[in-house]
């Protein structure tokens, strides 16, 4: 590990240092200079940091302190990739505010793969869930890595669908590894660590504070070649991600929604200002990158019997509740139960809350 890398990791230990302060501190020193050795003797430091901040940092100058931290990271299976590392993702180097160090758990090879970000509202409608699943499934088939923020809603659906399909996914956290947010996704984070990748720019002890989330979104935008937004509200964090994506010159793919749906206000707004972003099917994204669309695959169909076909005809376009299906098809509850379960198991329909079904 070089001196420069050590400098970054040491600076990362202090939670009160914002990204910009860290950059300013680094600017006070030459490349290859050990900050800790000259920390107290460099007069420029006083302009950047307050007295109390300097005092707090001054007690942590010893080598043993940093060594201990590094040891801890190693023990908890955290891999550190600093800006100076060869493994640092090329895509992130291009952005104006690249994270100084990435704390990673999992397969770091994924950082330099073809990534598409999938972000959206925390409260997706049935429509949002359905198209998130549909798009992610198609993207994963073409070995695209799905990057998202592990929030509830669209993010979780994106991660889970990727895992179910056996694809690759990167979850970018806002806080450190000891403060996984939301806690409900603890199990998901463990699954992602196993064979996929969990990253954050903060040391493990940083709590998931609100201001970190929009900052985190720049990493999602930075890592990805394009961002797909299935559903986003007017003031959604996803809109922030889109802003970053525009800033970093990334592609933007947005699914249109109903104009009166609050969860599509944001996405429709983007379409209004960026007309090229409208995306109607996964192929729109794939074609943009010249990926081959397997025409045969599109026509693949599971052998369905007559009854299943009848049921499927009714849920072709919009969701139907069990009762509606029973009334329409005149099937008994017993038969309908069996048919719907069979369709669900073959992945043709998805069961939604409240006993209703939609075609995936």
């Amino acid at each position, binding site marked *: 590990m070089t001196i420069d890398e050590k400098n970054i990791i040491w600076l990362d230990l202090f939670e009160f240092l914002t990204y910009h302060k860290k950059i300013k501190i680094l600017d006070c020193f030459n490349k290859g200079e050990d900050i800790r050795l000259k920390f107290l003797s460099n007069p420029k430091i006083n302009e950047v940091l307050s007295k109390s901040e300097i005092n707090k940092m001054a007690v942590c100058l010893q080598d043993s302190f940093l060594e201990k931290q590094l040891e801890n990271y190693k023990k908890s299976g955290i891999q550190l990739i600093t800006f100076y590392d060869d493994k640092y993702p090329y895509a992130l180097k291009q952005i104006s505010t690249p994270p100084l160090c990435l704390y990673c758990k999992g397969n770091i090879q994924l950082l330099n793969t073809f990534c598409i970000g999938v972000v959206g509202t*925390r*409260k*997706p409608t049935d429509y949002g*869930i359905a198209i998130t699943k549909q798009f992610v499934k198609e993207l994963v088939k073409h070995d695209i890595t799905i990057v998202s923020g592990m929030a*509830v*809603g669209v993010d*979780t*659906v994106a991660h*889970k669908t990727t895992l*179910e399909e056996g694809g690759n996914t990167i979850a970018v956290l806002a806080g450190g590894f000891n403060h996984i947010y*939301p806690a*409900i996704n603890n199990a998901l984070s463990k699954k992602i660590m196993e064979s996929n990748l969990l990253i954050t720019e903060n040391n493990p002890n940083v709590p998931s504070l609100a201001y970190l989330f929009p900052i985190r979104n720049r990493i999602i935008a930075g890592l990805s070649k394009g961002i797909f937004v299935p559903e986003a509200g007017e003031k959604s964090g996803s809109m922030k991600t889109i802003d970053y994506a525009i800033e970093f010159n990334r592609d933007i793919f947005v699914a249109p929604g109903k104009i009166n749906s609050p969860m599509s206000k944001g996405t429709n707004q983007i379409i209004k200002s960026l007309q090229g972003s409208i995306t109607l099917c996964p192929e729109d994204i794939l074609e943009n990158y010249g990926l081959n669309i397997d025409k045969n695959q599109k026509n693949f169909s599971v052998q369905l019997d007559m009854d299943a076909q009848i049921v499927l005809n009714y849920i072709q376009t919009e969701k139907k*509740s*069990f*009762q509606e299906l*029973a*009334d329409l098809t005149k099937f*008994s*509850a*017993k038969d*309908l*139960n*069996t048919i*719907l*379960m*069979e369709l*669900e*198991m073959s*992945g043709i329909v998805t*069961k*939604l*809350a*409240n*006993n*209703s079904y939609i075609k995936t």
Partner: protein
Amino acid sequence: MLSKILSFGLNGITGYPVEIEIDINTGLPGYDVVGLADTAIKESKSRVKAAIKNSAYNYPIHKVIINLAPADTKKEGSMYDLPIALGILVCEKVIENKSLDGFVVLGELSLNGEIRKLNGIMPMLISAKQMGYNKFIIPKENAMEASFIDQVEVYPVETLRQVVDFLRGENKLEKNNSKTFESALKEREIAHDFAYVKGQASAKRAMEIAAAGGHNILLIGPPGAGKTMLAKCFSSILPDLTFEESLEVTKIHSVAGVLDARTGIVVERPFRSPHHTATLISLTGGGAKAKPGEISLAHNGVLFLDEMPEYARNTIETLRQPMEDGYITVARNALTVQYPANFIMVASMNPCPCGYYGSSTNACKCSPAAIHKYLSKISGPLMDRIDLHIEVDSIKYEELTQYDLEEPSKEIKKRVDKARDKQLARFKNSKIYSNAKMGEKEFKQYCSLDKECTDLLELAFKRLNLSARAYNRILKVARTIADLDNSEKIEKQHLLEAIQYRSLDQKYTV
């Protein structure tokens, strides 16, 4: 002068003989009760005295000592008024002690000498009959309840005077007519019928399965979806009580004092719906007298927990053990009592705190964390004991206004009865009556799957993210569905339908 009269006491739902000895001796006038009597018995002094005087007999102006034997058991209740009064009259030589030989006397006195209704007559009579006593004097109001016990002589009485006249041979008392259980069965009526529940095809089907296999069921849906109505109809499709089952239920209801005096026996499966503010003791049973709780009152019937997450957590968690064992042991300072508590649990809940998650009519206002918190109020182990989860959506206006009736409960019950008969035949030699109660051994024996079904189940687990605890539940429910279908083997379609009913095991929210 000494008298001895036999009466009965209750420990839970089993009776024990109590001998009432009365001695009247010279001394200052007084009334002394010994033998661990409670306040109700000690207060009998005033009632007995007034009743004897108002029946135009003399009350002794001597020291009256009453001993309730066995002396080391606590006794409680007002059933000893009548035997004490008779004992005093024996000492006063109004009646002869011999005329009371072989009689068990029970009754509470009113000040004017009338005899009042008691709780717990049925269990006391049943225990007494088993111990070989077969002549009883009981309050007239309890006559119906006693009429279902055969091979005993029961004399229902209305006043103290009537009893005395009878014992002196001056008047004849009519013996209680015994009634058969079948006649009582015919007289009942169905209060809630599925014919009046519109739509809800999937929920009805799930309830049919629950009734057929004795499975616990959870209804999830927005407010106003009809969860409570569905639950109330549930007892109408359960198989009829057998006489033995009915006696067990009647015993508990008699002890708790909730028995309907007009019918005298419980003919319909009980439906208990304790409010969610219910305390732990009111559910499990207890209190100073170790009374049966709601879960015992629901024995052989239905325990309906409306808005399950609203119950206090520790209250609802106590249901776990009785749900597994079928009985509850209530231990109190003075006594330890075992009450049966073999019920089908029907629970209902909203999908989220505001109630409208996933609703087709209203928008949900809850944050995902709030929904998660709400759902996690019911612990995994408890969820583990609920075999079927079914989501109920509110009915649309058009459906409400249709006037044609749906399939009546009677028809559904016929199918349920058939499936139950199959199960009874299957578990003939064991103590199990329904698929839901299958143990490991029966489970292995009757729930085996062929290759196709095993593969299917494996796929289901992968696809739907089912938890391991769902496995046994799915197979048990599949067994019941196969029984409803009159199939010996669990087929693919049975298994597919059974998997439907595990919605809470899947990721419920995103």
